[in-house]
């Protein structure tokens, strides 16, 4: 008997701090290479797609191949603005944390295309079940910046009345479901919401996000099971940004397969999409939305992207990955890629881009200034009576007595 000694495998990322950052192990097919099946096709015909990578924008900024959504220049400019606004807002608000004006912040840097493109691809009344890294959904729909700042500062004008951590928004008027810090626990709500839409013969669909790290939670698999069983009209998205705080995607099970391929066992269509490509994100979303709206059920989409910033204000990414790793990401920057495309199309210019950047910068500065005038964390807060509201629809005696005890 010559049996090998058993060895426990613990995945490790290609490089840690001090090492040479590299994404050479990733197979990046050229843009335009993946076929676009009819959205009415049977899942059994597209079982190769979870292993492909749908890309539209090539390295020169051309839109190529069958997935080109042929968007109007206006729509692309709108998307570009939303992405730029998200990044500028993030950078500015992240700094306010360093200045002690808020307790917490999370940036979407590098991932702005996903929320922005999907926000514009779906219609009013469809419901987004977000993660904290798709704020571009709200920016694409012109959510008032001052309200957002007030929430982040937890000040007197905080729309969530000081009850929720910064960035964990809720914006019903913008079809943006209430966020929570428990990652993944709303993925199944999207499925239930979509089941309700189908039950009522409505025409609305749900869109949900989950990070690649969180696909390891039961919530993800429970939601996919229900999506497989009841075929509700929803789009289930995995934003694979390579990192869950300090754990690389291999720790979430991404070493042996793709996250899109998780769809296969559920009999759901799985698409793997360049998440830094505004046009590819739009095209995949439209394809999945077409299926959802015609009773063909759910689609799982993996958006392949890169978290260019840290997880939040609470971690320093240089402690667990090479400081320059973002620079090696082979799929580029979503803002730069769309800008390049628009310029190539003759629909945008450097001057226009600079003017827009300046306009956005002013708008964000003004919003922060307004928020600061209301007050930053600890300097202003909603009435303490708000602490006791919305526990139940109507307060019970405990809340009434305790309010009295506190004298409010």
């Amino acid at each position, binding site marked *: 008997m010559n049996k090998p000694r058993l060895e426990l495998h613990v995945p490790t990322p290609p490089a840690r701090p001090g090492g040479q950052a590299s994404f050479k192990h990733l197979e990046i097919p050229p843009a335009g290479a993946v076929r676009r099946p009819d959205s009415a096709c049977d899942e059994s015909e597209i079982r190769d797609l979870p292993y492909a990578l749908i890309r539209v924008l090539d390295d020169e900024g051309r839109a190529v191949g069958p997935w080109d959504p042929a968007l109007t220049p206006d729509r692309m400019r709108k998307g570009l603005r939303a992405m730029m606004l998200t990044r500028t807002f993030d950078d500015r608000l992240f700094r306010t944390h360093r200045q002690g004006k808020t307790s917490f912040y999370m940036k979407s840097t590098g991932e702005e295309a996903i929320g922005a493109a999907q926000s514009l691809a779906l219609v009013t009344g469809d*419901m987004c079940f977000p993660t904290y890294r798709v704020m571009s959904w709200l920016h694409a729909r012109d959510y008032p910046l001052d309200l957002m700042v007030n929430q982040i500062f937890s000040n007197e004008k905080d*729309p*969530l*009345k000081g*009850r*929720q951590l910064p960035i*964990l928004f*809720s*914006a*019903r008027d913008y079809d943006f*479901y*209430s966020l*929570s810090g*428990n990652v993944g*626990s*709303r*993925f*199944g*709500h*999207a*499925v*239930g*919401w*979509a*089941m*309700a*839409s189908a*039950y*009522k013969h409505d025409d609305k669909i*749900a869109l949900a996000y989950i990070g690649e790290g969180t696909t390891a939670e*039961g*919530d993800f698999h*429970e*939601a996919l*099971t*229900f999506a497989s*069983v009841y075929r509700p009209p929803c789009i289930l998205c995995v934003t694979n940004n390579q990192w869950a705080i300090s754990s690389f995607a291999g720790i979430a099970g991404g070493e042996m397969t793709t996250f899109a391929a998780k769809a296969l066992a559920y009999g759901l269509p799985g698409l793997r999409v360049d998440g830094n490509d505004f046009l590819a994100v739009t095209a995949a979303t439209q394809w999945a939305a077409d299926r959802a709206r015609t009773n063909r059920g759910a689609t799982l989409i993996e958006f392949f992207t890169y978290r260019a910033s840290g997880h939040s204000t609470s971690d320093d990414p240089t402690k667990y990955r090479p400081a320059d790793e973002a620079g090696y990401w082979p799929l580029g920057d979503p803002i730069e890629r769309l800008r390049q495309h628009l310029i190539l199309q003759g629909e945008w210019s450097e001057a226009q881009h600079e003017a827009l950047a300046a306009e956005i910068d002013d708008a964000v500065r003004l919003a922060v200034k307004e928020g600061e005038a209301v007050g930053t964390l600890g300097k202003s807060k909603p009435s303490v009576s708000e602490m006791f*509201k*919305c*526990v*139940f*629809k109507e307060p*019970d*005696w405990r809340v009434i007595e305790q309010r009295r005890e506190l004298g409010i």
Partner: protein
Amino acid sequence: MASMNMIQALNNALDEKLAQDPDVLTFGEDVGYFGGVFRVTDKLQEKHGVTRCFDTPISEGGIVAAAIGMGAYGLRPVAEIQFADYILPAFDQLVSEAARLRYRSNGEFWSPITVRSPYGGGIFGGQTHSQSPEAIFAHITGLKTVIPSNPHDAKGLLISAIEEDDPVIVLEPKRIYNGPFDGRHDHALKTWSGHPKAEVPEGLYRVPLGQADLVREGSEVTVLAYGTMVHVALAGIDESEVDAELIDLRSIVPLDIDAIVGSVRKTGRCVILHEASRFGGFGGELTALVQERCFDYLKAPIDRVAGWDTPYPHAFEWDYFPGPGRLAKALRRAMEY
């Protein structure tokens, strides 16, 4: 008015709500065609259609997550968890989502779900079909927890729960589904037939949440109980020959604090009876509330009669189960203090 057991009363409540409100639907494991392992949803699929009463995967977390999403859309889903012992995979959904959605979104989103679940012991179900987890729900701000003790209340409370705009857990004591079990396990089984609370009115009526029921008036000790223990308490009071007042709490959140305080101030003594293990059980909260509000009226220490602090056993069912004998002893102890 018809005589019903608790299963029929719960079935009737669901049937009438399904008929009255198109936004009500019910689902769970084996709930659809089969009608539930305890038959609470019997024939509802046949009567109301497959999209209004259906089977789900064996996925308690998935069931409650889907229910919350439906509730957020605007429906009033009623989910069944087959046994309360199996509700724990859904605990995160109940605690982190259902109970918190309204608060964290400043009322933008809420989910008026009802989660029904058979619970409690006395059926030789062993550890996984006998537990009483009500205290862990009572501790969660944002959840309401209801425990009926008879067919009349079961129907009225379930209708109230479904119409509530907050999430409600309805724990159904399975030992009294078919009859008012008083803990005397060696006696002949009783059915609900002939019991006054088995008279269930037709049509929609509500037993409001947070309103206790005075089951027996008395002057010497107040007994606080709910679910199966209401019937055990009656037997225990009988055995003790103490003139005890029995209050059926019916819902532990919201809690009818006025009924409790009024009674204990009158009797000056309080014994709490529940099936769940004692340490950290809901009896601890009741004890604290009574102590805080009735201290000057108390003539004896507040006492708790509860399950022992062990996991729910199998062969020792009747050694574990707090029966009438143990309550009688506690009542006499309170009187002799």
